[in-house]
């Protein structure tokens, strides 16, 4: 356990650092509200005249959308650390080698802290107000306390999976040397398969099959549907096991890929 200490220190420092940007967080909250309203209205319009029963009720969907907005920092792949990109493209990566700690773990805790601090600042005001909105827009509470606990576990595991995925973006920058390009391609694909564009239950069934094979839906779609009770508790536990397996696979693969690119790294000048 002793070897974890520096990473936890990094996590704490970054967390405190991220909490300083309160004005940015406030602006973020306002923006997220606007998006939330727009999405809710679009789906209300879609549901208004649909005769057939949809696989997810409007009420569950509204909750789903608000959760998306409040935990945006947990699920968006484009949420990035420009410092790390600069390290790679400018060649300052050489300094990172001098540190007596694993770079993969170091970056992982950095990225984790960044997302945590951003979400902690933003999620509570959004969740609080979303629960008080007029009926049509209101976010519902989870049906039982067990569901809520499962949601918390799923959300945290989802975040860990997401950071593991985002590490691959940074690894790919070693090869492409184009941070924005890598980010864009990863971001668009990841977000689509995480149900950010169309909620997963509303996708056609052939697409859902593809979504369930990939890890992206575990980060956003899965915890949010656990929350509203759309995924029953029994299945939720099964899903959490899958999350754990994916997390292990992604971290191991990430470490292997990372050490591969590090072997070939060309320090770009000085």
């Amino acid at each position, binding site marked *: 356990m002793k070897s974890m200490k520096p990473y936890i220190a990094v996590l704490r420092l970054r967390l405190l650092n991220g909490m300083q940007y309160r004005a*940015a967080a406030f*602006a*973020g909250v*306002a*923006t997220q509200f*606007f*998006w939330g*309203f*727009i999405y809710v*209205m*679009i789906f209300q*319009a*879609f*549901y*208004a*005249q*649909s005769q057939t029963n*949809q696989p997810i009720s409007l009420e569950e969907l509204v909750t789903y959308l608000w959760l998306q907005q409040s935990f945006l920092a947990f699920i968006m792949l484009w949420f990035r650390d420009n410092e790390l990109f600069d390290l790679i493209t400018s060649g300052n990566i050489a300094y990172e080698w001098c540190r007596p700690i694993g770079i993969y773990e170091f970056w992982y805790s950095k990225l984790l802290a960044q997302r945590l601090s951003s979400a902690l600042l933003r999620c509570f005001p959004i969740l609080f107000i979303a629960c008080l909105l007029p009926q049509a827009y209101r976010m519902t509470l989870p049906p039982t306390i067990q569901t809520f606990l499962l949601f918390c576990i799923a959300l945290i595991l989802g975040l860990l999976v997401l950071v593991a995925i985002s590490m691959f973006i940074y690894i790919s920058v070693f090869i*492409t*040397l*184009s941070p*924005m*390009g*890598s*980010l*864009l*391609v990863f971001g*668009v*694909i990841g*977000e*689509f398969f995480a149900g950010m*564009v*169309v909620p997963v239950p*509303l*996708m*056609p069934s052939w*697409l859902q099959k593809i979504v369930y094979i990939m890890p992206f839906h575990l980060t956003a779609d899965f915890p949010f549907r656990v929350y509203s009770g759309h995924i029953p508790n029994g299945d939720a536990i099964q899903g959490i096991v899958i999350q754990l397996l994916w997390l292990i696979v992604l971290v191991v693969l990430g470490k292997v890929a990372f050490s591969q690119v590090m072997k070939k790294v060309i320090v770009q000048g000085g």
Partner: protein
Amino acid sequence: MKLYFNYLILLFKSQMQYKTSFWLLSIGQFLVPFSAFAGLYFLFERFGQIKGWDFYEVALCFAIIHMAFALSECFARGFDNFSSLVASGNFDRLLVRPRTTFIQVLGSKFEFTRVGRLLQSVIVLGWAVNNLSIDWNLIKLVTLLLMILSGVCIFTGIFILAATLCFWTIQGLEIVNIFTDGGREMAQYPLNIYQKWVTRFFTFVIPFGSVNYLPLLFLLGRAREHEILYMLTPLMGIVFLIPCLLVWLFGVRHYQSTGS
């Protein structure tokens, strides 16, 4: 104008120095609206219609707004990145040159990678028009072009307003994204599917309604009376640019250098 084209050629050359980056970005820019469009398609596959609009009608709306957005991001990118110019104090350099600040900022950046986005919206537009039974005539064609032009003017106007704010705040404001990205996202659908207050705000304050809803009624032959009025509404978007420019000039006059 000649100066502006010189700027463009220079920027194009510099961006082509990083070829992998250029292509990756272009592909990415193609993918972004593509995933949004795929989302639209799947939603219509499930629901069939939205408040009486069918898929191709909304696709037309989608294509026009995305095309306008891509074009204005191409051209007015300089205003989008303006905060860095003010924060670094480099805006002083523009002020001493014997040209208007407007054209210099406009020419300071040009995103050629937005071509990907543009291409995508052109394809969607073609597809939508092909599947809609509109009896085309000259007036309708002009209306379509006006809609796109009007959209470009509105987005550019918002970029300029956001840039002007930087004169006072130094920092760029994330909240402006509500009107650019948010406006784009919202205007993908005909405006009447939203609640009244949203519709009103985006018709009379920021005239997105005059790009995607009112002239669309005319194009689809849904406007019963005063057809000519519906046809001319895109002009509102062009008018929107005028106060934005005035605010810009006002901002330039009140500019205080950060001195760094």
